[in-house]
């Protein structure tokens, strides 16, 4: 294979002591909320992503139908029901009226069918929508860290970042602009980027790739 047309210049001139280039992309899909469907009731995590998989639902006995009692401890939602008598509508209403439960899930469903007890059961299927990436070993992980926010963690520390830029690759045009939120290459080793609609971090809705090119400096010389 001839390389002649690439070899006019073999050195890149710069004042950066030890430049390190990291370039690549990570495939993103729309984050998905965790869900639990049981006996005609659907619980959907309020927060998109895998964090919803840690929410659990449990029905215990002891309440009177129409006066169900909802208790929330951390991500565990326990509903005291009238076993076999409390209806779908009774339980959905009780959960959605509970302020701490409504922060975690939205319950849906209707009907007069009696509901039976269930043991502690987690929601499932929550997904952060992080696909494969080709950044290489200088990036240790890519994670969704909030609504429309992604955190890239470097494998190593650097003296400073010279440049970090992001672009979106979207087959279907999307009105989102990546904006860097924070960079810490010398301590936390993180780069945080937001997808902005205007000034609002916003989750992507369709398959997209987040393209990054970064020039980091291993040296104090610049």
């Amino acid at each position, binding site marked *: 294979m001839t390389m002649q047309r690439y070899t006019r210049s073999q050195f890149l001139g*710069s004042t950066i002591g030890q*430049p390190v280039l990291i370039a690549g992309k990570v495939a993103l899909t729309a984050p998905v909320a965790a869900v639990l469907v049981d006996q005609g009731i659907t619980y959907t995590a309020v927060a998109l992503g895998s964090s919803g998989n840690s929410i659990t639902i449990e029905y215990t006995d002891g309440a009177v139908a129409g006066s169900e009692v909802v208790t929330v401890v951390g991500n565990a939602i326990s509903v005291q029901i009238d076993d076999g008598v409390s209806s779908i509508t009774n339980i959905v209403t009780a959960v959605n009226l509970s302020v701490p439960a409504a922060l975690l899930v939205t319950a849906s469903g209707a009907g007069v069918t009696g509901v039976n007890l269930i043991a502690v059961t987690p929601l499932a299927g929550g997904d952060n929508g992080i696909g494969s990436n080709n950044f290489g070993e200088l990036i240790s992980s890519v994670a969704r860290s909030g609504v429309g926010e992604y955190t890239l963690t470097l494998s190593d520390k650097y003296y400073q970042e010279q*440049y970090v*830029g992001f672009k979106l690759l979207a087959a279907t045009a999307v009105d989102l602009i990546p904006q860097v939120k924070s960079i810490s290459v010398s301590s936390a080793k993180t780069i945080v980027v937001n997808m902005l609609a205007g*000034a609002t971090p916003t989750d992507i809705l369709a398959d997209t790739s987040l393209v990054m090119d970064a*020039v980091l400096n291993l040296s104090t010389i610049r």
Partner: protein
Amino acid sequence: MNKYLRSQFVYSTYGKPVLIAGKLSIAANAAVSSNTLGSLVSTAARTGAGEYTITLSDTYNAAQSVDYQLLAATAVDLVPQIKSIDVVTAKTIVIRLLAGATATDPSAVCSLYLNIVLNASSV
């Protein structure tokens, strides 16, 4: 350090590629407080509402690429756009921060990262 030493060369068709990469630190009053662009840039300053001019220390045959990225701890509806590039005579690169189509000063501390590839050769 092994993983950084796989390639020491850059292949390109540019005669003498030169990389300038760094950031302008922009204060809450929209002025440039400092930059990390290095000695190949002589000045970087606010030259109008939402407008920043980078003046190079030397002339070049061509600007091959000028890329940019805004960093803001609190998300802001500003998008950088290049206004002009003249590396042959004036040695300037002018970038604006746009709100819609209006150059607008940032109202809080932010950073504007630049990645500039120049050609110091006519090849």
